[in-house]
């Protein structure tokens, strides 16, 4: 394994030509750019919050989780410094550049050359394993682990596969071009080869809906209708951003839950439309809740039929996820559908179909200021009673603390690594 002095020296030399240091390189971003590669829309990388959380959703994503093999805190900090610099360049639509040496690997794999920034965002997260792994405090960070960065409990119906679960670091790259998103994670993974190993990854997509339209997931229903409004800064402070009650280094950050959820599409596709709608508690076409006309009409959870049975079914997805049924709990969902081709599947529910089926579903991603009062609170109940559970299986995932954003000259998570 390389030593930390190599990382800041050799690695930098390998792709950050002539920069006095990473911070300098970042501040002088054009030195990282290939002339003429900057076109199309780019989101600002630097800021109080990391981009890719309340940012309008791009059409593609690539999510990756890593296991750290770095031995020292400084090595991890150096990796984050390198990743931050690279992410700033990539999101600006710049290629990574290094020494012009035909006898060395290129600093950039090149497949994004000629493509626009495509609204690329790169969002970094820290898993519990950064702080404590197998009972060991590898980096002297255990004391800085925020209380909200819990070990997610086992939920009813969880069928988590170890190879798709956990991770010490996470990267979610989102862009309007699948190749741009993959390119970004590929470069970061390569930069991190000696310090962080890929553990699991999941590409995803959403359809090209007009701005302001709720996207549909692979179940064919609108997904995200009840999401809190991201332009409401006060609401985002309540729901998404870690506040003054959290660890100092996390304030302005957010907790990311990412869970690949396999959907038994072959089973779902055999269901009557009316039954699908009962599972959801909404009309498939309009997205309106039962008893309502339009998608955004407020749902009426108290409406009952003549026998006193609820109009919006007792175990429907919309009812169980509604803030009113979860003591007001809300999360900001930012999920992507996925399609991994085919896989051999033994379904969990009657009729227990077995065979080659679509390995497809939803990479559920949500952000919140505290998962204990967000995802865990909401999903604890849903995992037991949601009718949709007969068609969906959580097969992996993790919880990651996404630090606040960084200012130019600094790096993501700097306040954590410099804390004592």
């Amino acid at each position, binding site marked *: 394994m390389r030593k930390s002095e190599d990382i800041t020296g050799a690695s930098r030399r390998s792709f950050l030509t002539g920069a006095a240091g990473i911070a300098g390189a970042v501040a002088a971003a054009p030195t990282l750019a290939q002339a003429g590669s900057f076109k199309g829309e780019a989101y600002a990388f630097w800021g109080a919050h990391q981009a890719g959380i309340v940012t309008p959703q791009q059409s593609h994503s690539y999510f990756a989780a890593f296991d750290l093999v770095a031995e020292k805190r400084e090595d991890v900090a150096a990796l984050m410094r390198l990743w931050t610099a690279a992410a700033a360049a990539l999101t600006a639509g710049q290629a990574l550049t290094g020494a012009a040496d035909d006898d060395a690997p290129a600093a950039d794999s090149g497949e994004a050359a000629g493509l626009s920034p495509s609204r690329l965002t790169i969002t970094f997260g820290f898993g519990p394993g950064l702080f404590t792994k197998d009972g060991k405090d590898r980096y002297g960070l255990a004391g800085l682990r925020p209380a909200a960065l819990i070990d997610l409990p086992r939920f009813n119906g969880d069928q988590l596969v170890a190879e798709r679960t956990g991770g010490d670091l996470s990267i979610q790259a989102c862009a309007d071009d699948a190749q741009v998103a993959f390119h970004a994670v590929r470069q970061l993974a390569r930069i991190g080869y000696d310090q962080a190993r890929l553990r699991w990854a999941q590409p995803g997509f959403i359809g090209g809906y007009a701005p302001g339209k709720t996207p549909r997931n692979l179940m064919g229903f609108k997904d995200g209708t009840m999401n809190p409004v991201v332009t409401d800064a006060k609401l985002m402070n309540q729901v998404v951003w870690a506040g003054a009650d959290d660890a100092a280094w996390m304030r302005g950050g957010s907790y990311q839950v990412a869970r690949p959820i396999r959907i038994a599409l072959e089973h779902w596709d055999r*269901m009557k439309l009316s039954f699908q709608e009962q599972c959801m508690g909404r009309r498939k076409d309009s997205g309106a809740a039962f008893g309502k006309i339009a998608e955004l009409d407020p749902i009426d959870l108290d409406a009952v039929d003549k026998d*006193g049975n609820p109009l919006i079914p007792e175990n429907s997805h919309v009812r169980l996820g509604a803030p009113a049924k979860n003591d007001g709990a809300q999360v900001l969902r930012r999920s992507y559908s996925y399609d991994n081709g085919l896989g051999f599947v033994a379904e969990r529910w009657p009729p227990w179909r077995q065979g080659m089926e679509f390995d497809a579903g939803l990479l559920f991603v949500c952000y919140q200021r505290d998962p204990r009062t967000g995802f865990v609170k909401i999903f604890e109940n849903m995992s*037991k009673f949601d009718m949709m559970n007969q068609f969906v299986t959580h097969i992996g995932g993790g919880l990651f603390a996404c630090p606040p954003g960084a200012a130019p000259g600094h790096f993501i998570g700097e306040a954590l690594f410099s804390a004592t």
Partner: protein
Amino acid sequence: MQMTRNLAIVAAAGLLGLACQARATPQGFLETVHRHVTLASMSPDNGDLNPYAVVVAPVSAGKIQKDDVLVDNFNNISNLQGTGTTIVDFNPTTKQTTLFAQIPQKLAQCPGGVGLTTAMTMLKSGWVIVGSTPSTDGTTATKGDGCVLVLDPNGKLVATWSGPTINDPWGNMAVIDNGSTATLFISMAGFGIPGPDVLDPATHYPVTVRKATVLRLELSIPDGQPPKLLSQTIVGDGFAQRADRDNFLFGPTGLALDEAGTLYVTDGLDNVITAIPDAISRTTSAGTGKVVTHDELLAWPLAMAWAPDGHLLVCNGKNGQVVEVDPATGKQIYGQWIDSDQAQSPPGNGDLFGLAMSPDGASFYYVEDDMNTLVKAAK
């Protein structure tokens, strides 16, 4: 599933649905039931699935409060049948669910191990008695003979009964509980069943054997001591059984004893309810007994309970209906969809099993395998 569980009463063959609705006087109990409310998940922390038995506690003892609902699980977290080891306690007052007992899956004194079945009861003396029909791969290919387990009211295993007459205690028990003595009736569904891949060339289904029995067990319960098994009598035999990959096995399942001592038995494979006369006193087997009713609304009848009007409520295995039967006439009065989950075909297929009347006789509890939940059907 609540909303889909439309409350349609299904008229028995030969009865017009409209005629049903027009009648002023109730024909039975089910027409008074209009709501189905999910109470709780029955899957405990160890992930056990597939709730089977439903028992309402007759007394408060140990960890159990009177009127609590006890439910056991037949499957483990991997959803393998015959491997569930837990009994869950739901308190209707506090709405809290707690783990009452977790029994080791491997238990030397229980041949084949532990997979808890619908054969469960709680005695007035506080003892909980439950059957085991174990497997290691979720099919009858690895089935053991199982046993009857006795637990104290704190969920501790205190006795195990096994032997040549006990082979996969399966369906819901009929019980006479006199305090210091008790009589249990348990169906034994495992005798001679091979694995599900042993097919009958004529039907292409797993082979049917007819060796299942209904066993009467006489117990004495000395003060402060676990029940003692005094004697056993086979009161019925020759019931149909076969292996099934989805349902583990078919065999005699539901038992209900009337005040005259007639024991009613559901036999899923033959789709029939039969009656064994003088079940309390007889010293010989009545064979499969006298046919009370068959087919029509019955669709693999499973567990059975008495409604307050003297009718029998029978859960179907093949769909999500409960059927009300007048045992005196053999008339199937009607059925009701208590689980119309269309994720299965027919709706509710394979979801139902145990059921039990609430103490006030106005509603009943049942379990749903699709969601691993306890549900209450009420007015």
